[in-house]
């Protein structure tokens, strides 16, 4: 098998004095959709933030396409071709929808055009001139995902895109993720909702207390639920 696109070994991270990741290791191959499952506070969001360099001190190794990311500033990590969509969505209130969409600079050729993004998310086109935060929760989520597709980054880190959304919108987000996979994007998804995760992912890493406790393929997930229950029970 080829070298993983993202190869994380012994990743540790801190927020000030608080030690949030204790040696996370995971591999993501190009074209895969991977989820990080686990309860609140298990370290899923911290893992994404640590990959982007948004935590405090980090240690260990994050190889992206063979290049070490651990010492880089967030903007240089993004420029290497990783795009991040935060849990709180990060839509800017002082920017309209178009400005929000055009904000992340292109880091590589081959990103989606604005028209393609509007085809994926027709709602956004109608709201192009609205202030970003006047959108509904679902529209904000589409905008948050849409704007990182323009940049040409091929690895997307999505933090709980289904959170707090109506089931019909969650289904639309699910379709979008499958569509992105078919277009060759690689996705690392944080989820609490493993039913949703099951519909989009190839493989799951289960986290607890800042560590990876188990890894299961999507096919194994249903039969492993008993074993994983202690990590996933809500």
């Amino acid at each position: 098998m080829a070298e993983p696109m993202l190869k994380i070994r012994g990743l540790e991270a801190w927020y000030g004095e608080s030690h949030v990741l204790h040696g996370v290791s995971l591999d993501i191959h190009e074209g895969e959709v991977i989820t990080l499952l686990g309860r609140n506070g298990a370290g899923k969001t911290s893992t994404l933030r640590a990959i982007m360099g948004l935590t405090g001190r980090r240690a260990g190794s994050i190889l992206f396409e063979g290049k070490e990311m651990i010492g880089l500033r967030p903007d240089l990590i993004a420029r290497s071709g990783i795009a991040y969509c935060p849990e709180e969505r990060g839509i800017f209130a002082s920017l309209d929808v178009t400005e929000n969409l055009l904000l992340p600079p292109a880091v590589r050729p081959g990103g989606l055009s604005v028209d393609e993004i509007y085809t994926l998310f027709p709602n956004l086109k109608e709201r192009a001139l609205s202030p970003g935060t006047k959108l509904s929760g679902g529209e904000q989520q589409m905008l948050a995902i849409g704007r990182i597709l323009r940049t040409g980054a091929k690895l997307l880190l999505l933090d709980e895109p289904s959170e707090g959304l109506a089931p019909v919108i969650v289904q639309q987000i699910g379709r979008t993720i499958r569509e992105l996979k078919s277009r060759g994007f690689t996705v690392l998804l944080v989820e609490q909702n493993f039913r949703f995760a099951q519909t989009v992912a190839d493989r799951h890493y289960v986290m607890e207390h800042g560590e990876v406790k188990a890894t299961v393929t999507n096919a194994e997930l249903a039969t492993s639920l008993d074993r994983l229950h202690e990590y996933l029970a809500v």
Partner: protein
Amino acid sequence: MDEIFGIPAPLLFGQLLLGLINGAFYALLSLGLAVIFGMLNVINFTHGAQFMLGAFVAWAMLNFLGLGYWWALLLAPIVVGLFGVLLERTMISKLYKLDHLYGLLLTFGVGLIIEGLVRNEFGSSGLPYRIPPELSGAWDLGFMFMPVYRGWVVIVALVACIATWLVIERTRIGSYLRAATENPALVQAFGINVPRMMTLTYGAGVALAAFAGVLAAPIYSVNPQMGSNLIIIVFAVVVIGGMGSILGSVLTGFGLGIVEGLTKVFYPEASATVIFVVMAIVLLLRPAGLFGRA
């Protein structure tokens, strides 16, 4: 049109014009402060000293290099802006992780040092700076004589304020700036070099102060205290307009200049304090300022 409300018209219009001119400087300076505060979260107390440096650099260019007003208007903001870049890189940027108060104390101290050094070198009596010949003389407006240079200051200040506003509200760079004001970490995670943006924003805000200093040189005498006298009022303007609001600082700057001018006509005793009275009232009724978001 000899009298308005029992006030001789030339007096009224004269004070209105003076108010408008002071307002132009309030607007330019508070605009720079607002831009810097929005992006860096630092209240730049060096602003007055940087305004004064603009005037002194203009004076020095004329007397040591023979470069006149127009060159000064172009070059002094660049020179002082670069000094601002240096200050941000070597000192202010080290304080971002601490409380705002440290940035305030640092910039206050640097301002005092600059003022002291200039006073040591040039004395405190003030140096003359002539109005450029192209802008000397006065227009007869029928109801009053309008010195050309004063009209020029008001127009240029307005143009500079509108240009700054357009850059911030209507350009790509401006959208980066607005976004980084809201959430710098996320903007950086999109691949934008936010630390460099902060440096350049500080440099631009300082350059704007120096630009105002060059404009002021022929009106006020060029002296080390010219900035600290003005900056106290400008901080009141910023508080009234709302910290960090671009449009608010411009409108409030011009508005309060006019209020001050009118007070000089109708109740001269209060003219030195009227802005602070307005500030107290605004703080009581709208603590976030007239244009600030609470």
